[in-house]
Every structure is written in structure tokens, then in C-alpha cells.
């Protein structure tokens, strides 16, 4: 099976969908001739033309607004918002329009728009190129929210998102574009070719939206996480010699409550980890749901490791990023409580 990094896997997903469905179009800043600042749409305009892969003005609200109109007119737009930090000007179109169009028109109108956007830190992006705003989007009724953690899932989930008749906000943890990252920036970069999930079929396949994945089965504790933190949590559990069951949420809306809660009922302990800020973060929803479903099976309070409730500071990136040391402390707390 071919090896792909996450950029190539995402590119392959769009290439396949542009070829399969003449209604698929791509639009965003720098996505056309140049192929995107992260190269995710590289070569697609050359292959499918300027009417299928459109460079746009720098106006995220307009990109999403126009994509909604395109979707209403039968196209299946895939928009790129260059950084998740730039998505806020589009939020009125996403929250008030895209998310609610089907509802308010009683199903007569809908817009199958996919919004791709790179998120997360660890690339020295400072406070405007490092954010993880996924939790905000999970609070809006009517949009699906996904975040893959590896090339295989990235391709399969993106194809599933493009084919989905509901709008999807598709977060791409950009620190993972070129390889899995265990949270230690001093180590040499590891390419995706060394990882089983870097082996990606050339052709069409989907990864279903709404299904979490147990990336490592274990008995002692359940770690519920997603995105870059999957690898950080693996490293932290390994450093403690813990037999942790690690769940990659993958899809925040809809959430695979069964997979998560079955695991917690089995292990009796749970740590939630995400890079996003802690207060009202998606971990709060996970924690509340797990507590409601699994209270009588819990041996200890549910733990949370998250980004600090501050903007992402440029100079203190590795004090901010919830690295393996902090996850290990969180794990110890969950394990040591009686």
C-alpha cells in the first residue's frame, strides 16, 4: 500500500472526489494555482481547471457564504479556511446559516459544504496560527465536527465529509501533516512512512463520521483524546508503563458515546486530553457525558489535561502545549486516587 503523509492523503481524497463527482468544487485562499499554503490542494487546479478549484479573495465569510449558495444550487463545495484562527469572520455564515438552513426550511434547502481548516499548535504559530476552536463548533446544532489524527483517517473522513449532505467542519491538526508527533519538540521529526496509518490506499474509501477508534486497547485506564494529543497520550502512558486504552474521538459531532463509555466502564478510570483551552472546552462535554453514563463504574474522578486558558503564546509554546509530562501527571492523578 502506498505511503502518504496527511497532506498527500487529504489531496488524494479531494482528487478522487473531484474526479468522481462533477459537482465537487474547491475554493479558498491560495488553494488554486499555488496549491495552498500547506500544499494540500497542490496540482488540483491544474488537473480540474479554474472553475473547479477557485482561488478566492481573503474573506472567509464570503467563502463560506458563497459556498452555501453553491451548495443550494447543487454543487458540493469544499472550502479551505487557511488557519482555524481565521475562521471567525465566517462564523455567522456557519452558525446562523449553514448549520440551520435545513432546519429553518423544513428540509427544502440544504448546503452540503465541507469546511477544511488546519488547527493546533506546535509549529511556532503564535496566538493567531495555533488555535484549536473545535469546541466552539460542537456547540452549534446542525454541523458535524471531525478531526482526524492520521493520514488514513484523514482521507477516509474527508471523502465521507464531502459526500455527506450535512455540513462538516473538518479540522486538520497541522502539526501532524508531516508525521506523528509525541509532544517532544527536541526529538527528530518522524515521517508518516514509519506509522501503520501512513499506509493509505490510492483509491476511494471512507471512514464513517460518528465512530471513535480505539487506537490502543488497554485495561488500566481510558484516555479519551483526538488530534495531535493521540500521540502525546501514547507517549505519556508508555513512559508510566500503563496499560492504557486510548480512544481517538475522531468525530466530535456526532459523538460515539458507546465506544467511549464502554471503555470507561471497563477500565473504571478516565483521562481526557485536548490541546484546546480547558474552560468550556470539548473535554467538559466529554467529562460530563462520561460521568453521567459511567458514574458507578468510576474508581476515580475523571481527569482533564488541556491547553491553559490563555491565548497561545509564541515564546512559551512548549509550556503551553499539553505535552507528555503534563499528560503523565494527569494520568498519575487518575491512577493514584484510591
Amino acid at each position, binding site marked *: 500500500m502506498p505511503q502518504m503523509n496527511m497532506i498527500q492523503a487529504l489531496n488524494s481524497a479531494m482528487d478522487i472526489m473531484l474526479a468522481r463527482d462533477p459537482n465537487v468544487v474547491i475554493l479558498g485562499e491560495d488553494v488554486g494555482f499555488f496549491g495552498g499554503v500547506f500544499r494540500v490542494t497542490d496540482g488540483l487546479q491544474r488537473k480540474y481547471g479554474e472553475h473547479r478549484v477557485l482561488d478566492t*479573495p481573503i474573506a472567509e465569510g464570503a467563502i463560506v457564504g458563497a459556498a452555501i449558495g453553491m451548495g443550494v444550487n447543487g454543487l458540493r463545495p469544499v472550502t479551505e479556511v487557511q488557519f482555524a484562527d481565521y475562521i471567525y469572520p465566517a462564523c455567522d455564515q456557519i452558525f446562523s446559516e449553514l448549520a440551520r438552513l435545513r432546519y429553518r426550511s423544513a428540509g*427544502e434547502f440544504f448546503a452540503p459544504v465541507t469546511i477544511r481548516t488546519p488547527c493546533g499548535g506546535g509549529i511556532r504559530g503564535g496566538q493567531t496560527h495555533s488555535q484549536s476552536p473545535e469546541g466552539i463548533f460542537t456547540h452549534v446544532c446542525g454541523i458535524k465536527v471531525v478531526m482526524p489524527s492520521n493520514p488514513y483517517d484523514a482521507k477516509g473522513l474527508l471523502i465521507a465529509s464531502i459526500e455527506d449532505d450535512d455540513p462538516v467542519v473538518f479540522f486538520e491538526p497541522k502539526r501532524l501533516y508531516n508525521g506523528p508527533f509525541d509532544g517532544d519538540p527536541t526529538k527528530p521529526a518522524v515521517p508518516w512512512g514509519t506509522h501503520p496509518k501512513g499506509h493509505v490506499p490510492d483509491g476511494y474509501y471512507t471512514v464513517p463520521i460518528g465512530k471513535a477508534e480505539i487506537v490502543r486497547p488497554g485495561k488500566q485506564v481510558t484516555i479519551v483524546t483526538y488530534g495531535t494529543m493521540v500521540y502525546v497520550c501514547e507517549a505519556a502512558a508508555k513512559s508510566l508503563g500503563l496499560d492504557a486504552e486510548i480512544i481517538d474521538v475522531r468525530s466530535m459531532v456526532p459523538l460515539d458515546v458507546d465506544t467511549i463509555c464502554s471503555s470507561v466502564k471497563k477500565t473504571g478510570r478516565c483521562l481526557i486530553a485536548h490541546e484546546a483551552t480547558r474552560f468550556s472546552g470539548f473535554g467538559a462535554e466529554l467529562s460530563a457525558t462520561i460521568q453521567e453514563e459511567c458514574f458507578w463504574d468510576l474508581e476515580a474522578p475523571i481527569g482533564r489535561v488541556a491547553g491553559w486558558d490563555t491565548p497561545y503564546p509564541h515564546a512559551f509554546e512548549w509550556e503551553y502545549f499539553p505535552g507528555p509530562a503534563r499528560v503523565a501527571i494527569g494520568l498519575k492523578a487518575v491512577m493514584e486516587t484510591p
Partner: protein
Amino acid sequence: MPRRSRLHIPQHHSRPGEEPDFSYLETSPAGAVRRPDVNARVRDISHLSVEMVRVLDDEHRPVGPWNPHLDPPELQVGLRHMVLTRIFDERMQRAQRAGKISFYMRSYGEEAVSVAQGMALRPGDMLFPSYRNQGLYMVRGKPLVELMCQLLSNTRDMCKGRQLPVMYHWASGRIFSISGNLTTQFPQAVGWAMAAAIKGEDDIAVSWIGEGSSAEADFHHAMLFASVYQAPVILNVVNNQWAISTFQGFAGGEQRSFAARGPGYGMAGVRVDGNDFLAVYAVTQWAAERARTGAGPTLIEHVTYRGAAHSTSDDPSRYRPKDDYEKWPLGDPVERLKGHLISLGEWSEERHAALVAELEQHVNESWKESVQYGALNEGPRLNRDLMFEDVFKEVPEHLKRQREQLRAELGG
């Protein structure tokens, strides 16, 4: 003393108790504005955005190059749609005052905009209206009962009880869902038009906002995208002078016309007498042909007047003279088209009275039928399970659980 910077606060021409003063309004004589080819370059037609296209003169005669030369039967149809819109509005206003519906918005004084434009477009053209474009529904023939059932949020509500009154939609009639958030439909219309061009179809998109809403970022987004991609779209700013209580100066209308923003973005801008049925029809025809033949988008500013309150929740006597609309220099669109037809010998006061009586009866009968299907607080109700549908295409697990929870907690 050196001069210092000074903040300008736009001041309305007259306030409650004062004499209405419309001296700020710049108009052109009927027939005076040159009509360029539909494919003229933007730089050559900037006069259209500062002058005012008018066809009907003070004696109700059509004059000048913009006369669309409509046959009397077409004019009579236009009059009928406008009168129906007005009667429908009046009846629904009364229904709101009687507590039958929660909210209503009339289009009194600006009926020509929706009706003339709706008639000048093709049935395949996609309309992205604002909340004061009910005339479009009259033109495209939506049964009144269906509109009324939406207003009543009853068992036949097209929105299944999810939207405020007047936020209609009609997919098969090619009228987009009204949001309630202002101007959001503008960039969506541009996207729809871009898709039509991408697919090689010659339907165009048309959208409407008020002049107040042109302050939203979505206006600028729409203008930019329409211009950059030369999308086949008509963007309408209905300048009815008022955004609830703030007059058009607060939206930027004091220094330059709204139509002039068209050339500012590199697209045609046309300023039209919005109460002149023939002029609105003619500029829409011009802009539609321009869009359909790949010559680019047009911004049309309709200079009109909001003759009624913003909505049933508003009281304009607190911020403008009571007789403002009676003194509006561009008159009333229904009276002007009626006068034109009479001057042609194709209409009379008697025929008009008969039309009004016929349409009042039609509206009243439609209302009687509609209330049989329930109202917000009385009669049969929608199934509340509908609340959980259409959030997504399929009802997801968590919403199924919440639907069960509602049943368990509230019974039934």
C-alpha cells in the same frame, strides 16, 4: 485657532411634530437618464449610479429610453399583484393586532420593487429575498393559504413551526429561505450565481436587502465576489430610507448613493425610482440581460419609502413625522401604476374598486381556511417531535434520546 477634526452625526430631515422635509432627495426628471447597452463597460455608465432612472412622468405618461413598453394586460397583472400584496399585508397586520399571529412585517409603499422585479425575471431565476419582499410570492403564485399557515405556525406551516412569521421559503418556486439575520443571503446569492455559471446554466440569482443592511460585512463580501468572478447576479438595495429608527444617513447614504457602491466595486450600479413600476421593471430587465449574457452583475438601488412601521413591534411615530409618507416626493407605487393605466384608458376607479373587493374577499377566504389548521396558541398543533428533525439529514442518536427525554419529562 487651528481647525480641529469634528465628528459628524447624521441628522434626520425631520422628527415627530415637524414638517416632513425631503429636500435631501436628489431625483432626475422622468425620461432623462441615458440607457446604455446591456454590455457597456462599468467605467462608461457611472451616471446610472448617481442619477435616477424614472419612466412615469407627473402626468402618468411613460417617457424616455427606459420605457419597457409593457402591454396593458401585463400592467394590469402588475397592479393586481401590488394590490394583493397590500391587502394581504393589511389583513395580516390586523391578525397580529387581534393576537392571532405573533409578528408581522408589511411592505406598504415598496410593493413595486418585488412585483415589478419578480415579473421582469424568468421563472428559473433564483430569488434570495429579504423579509419585505412578499410581492415575489404574489408574482410567482404561492397560494395565500400557505403563506398564512406559515404566519400562524400551524399544522400546515411550511417551516414546521421553526421560523418567525414572514420567514417563508419555496424551493419549487425558486425562492430561498428567509433567514432573519440580515444580509446573509447576499453572498449566498452570489455563490448560487457562480454555481450556475460553473454549470453553464443561464439562470441568474437575485437578492434583496435594505439600505440599512448594506452596512453588514456580507454586503461587501457579496459585492466583492460578484465583481471578482463577474457572477450572473442582481444585488438589490431597497433604500426605503429607514432601518427601524435610523434613517439612511446612518448606513452611509448621506455622502454618496448606495448605487455608487457598484462602480466602487467594479460593477454596474443603477439608481432607480423604486415607486415607478415601469422604471423598476426596465432596470431589472436590463440588469438581468446583462447578467445572463455574461456582461456581469448589477447593484440596483431602489429609492422608495417604508410607508409602514418596521414591524408590528415598532412605533415610527416616536422617530418620524406621522405624515412623512404622504409627503414622500416619489408618491405611492400603487397609485402611480393605477394612474398610468387610467391615463391609457385601460383602467378606471370602478374597475379598481372591484379589484380591491375581489382581492379582499380572496384574502378573507384564505384566512378563514388557514385558521382551521390551527394557530400558534389555539386549535390543532404540529407534532412536537418535528422539533428534532432536519437538524441533520438523519436524526442522530443524541437527538433521538432527547426526543425520548422530552416525552418522558413532559408526557404525551
